[in-house]
């Protein structure tokens, strides 16, 4: 089954390199307002710069950006770093973390299908979840379902999921969601964080195998 999609056909014809898809989940709940969101935006700029700099990463890494608050929104579909247009982020609402994770998994499944339809190889996908809070405003069953999905996929080595907490983030709660130990980010050092993300992605996308990620900072 292949549907007619000229843009994706051209995209994959132009660049038949294998892809390493990565979803970054950005908490944009009310508590993010002010310095936090500004720091996050600066961090994303660094991420883009670092990925574009690296020849293989610029061809192989594909980043999708998803914000979550009271609703979950894909603010940028999967693209190689050079085409990544960084959005302006606005903080408001609650923290629908579970829905965001499930949405990211859906995005990854859909993207992998596009890869397969277009004869494009791919690496194990990644999700980075950045939050300053706890799941809030959604049914507990949603975060449970998301947790279960992450666990299954990590066990199958079909996903690398990282939770990064800062501000008032509940690290113990994050440790229950993520199989890998969550990363506690001090002093909103997003630039450092995204340099680690980009280094991990560069290694992932330069190898011949789906690699284990670098140890996180801090």
């Amino acid at each position, binding site marked *: 089954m292949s549907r007619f999609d000229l843009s994706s056909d051209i995209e994959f014809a132009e660049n*038949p390199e*294998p892809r390493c898809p990565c979803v970054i989940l950005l908490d944009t709940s009310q508590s993010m307002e002010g310095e936090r969101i500004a720091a996050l935006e600066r961090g994303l700029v660094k991420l883009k710069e670092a990925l574009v700099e690296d020849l293989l990463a610029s061809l192989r890494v594909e980043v999708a950006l998803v914000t979550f608050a009271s609703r979950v929104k894909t603010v940028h579909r999967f693209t190689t770093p050079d085409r990544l247009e960084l959005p302006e982020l606005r903080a408001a609402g609650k923290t629908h973390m579970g829905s965001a994770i499930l949405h990211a998994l859906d995005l990854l499944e859909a993207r992998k299908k596009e890869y397969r339809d277009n004869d494009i190889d791919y690496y194990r996908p990644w999700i980075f979840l950045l939050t300053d809070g706890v799941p809030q405003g959604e049914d507990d069953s949603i975060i449970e379902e998301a947790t279960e999905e992450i666990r299954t996929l990590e066990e*199958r*080595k079909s996903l690398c999921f990282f939770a990064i907490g800062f501000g008032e983030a509940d690290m113990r709660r994050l440790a229950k969601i993520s199989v890998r130990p969550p990363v506690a980010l001090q002093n909103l050092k997003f630039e450092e964080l995204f340099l680690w993300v980009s280094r991990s992605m560069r290694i992932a996308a330069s*190898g*011949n*195998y789906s690699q284990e990620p670098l140890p996180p900072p801090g």
Partner: protein
Amino acid sequence: MAQTRHRLRSRGTGTRGAREPAAARGLLGLLARLLGRAPRSAGRPARRTQRHGASGTASHNGATSTTPLVRFEWEVFGESARGTNHRRAEEPGQDAHHWWVDTERNVLAAAVADGAGSAKLGGPGAELAARTAVEALSEAVQRGATDFEQMLRHALIHARLALETEARSRGCALQDLSTTLIVLIAEPDRGAIAQLGDGFAVLADADHQPTAHSDPQRGEFVNETVFLTDEDALYRTVIRAWDQSVHAVAMLTDGLQRLAMQLSHNRPHTPFFQSVFRTGNLGSGDMARQLMRFLHSRRLAERTDDDVTLLVAWCRRIPIPLRRAPRRR
């Protein structure tokens, strides 16, 4: 792990390729074709292709009873080029290949192996596996064995045992030596290939038309595959046999896959293989030079950062002039 697990044990399944150009035209047609071509330098392989065993230069009366006027010669080219990812890190390559030709019986044995990038000693593992498999085949041929499938199975068992012994003597885990392995044994009019892991084997007919003859075992993600060091490796081996004339065979590791194959259909890219097989029309020196230039080219490095191995063997059919005694010794 979401890996595909083929348990096929096919014999000659799906072998569409490499037919004799219309059997009805018979020997004379074949001879005319061969004579009509530019004279070849009769299979003296380039020095660098003589890595292992005999080199297919000696002549012998054609072994099959139907072709008394043709003698066969295998000409082999093999090269493993280190990928840019290893060059950058100044690491040795992790691909290996070996081959051997029995000039009396016109038998070719060959192997290509791709050491796992994730394994510490993937390179030595690949080298050992390829060498052991070819040695096992050559011994079997010299013993007079003729059951190709069984010989291939034994070759894989030998290769696996060699890795186990090596792991013990190095004091490392067997998985540190992880490698894929494709092993081929062929005579001019029949052959078989055993495959474990990814990589490709392609057969060519007289017009250089390529046909895939491999079953790459791939997982969901890039380069996820099965290895000779896996617990159930020998059960996963896929063997494919054929019993028609083949004019050339090519074996390659997956570093060349994006250039050489349409992955989702496991079909060879015809232009790629036609150019490769056509180099066989050149003298062996030019052939080797062209293929070496390609394998070490910047253009190739731009398309893949992985090691690449290409092993090509041409089965020459060399007419024997009627007035000369067919046996020279």
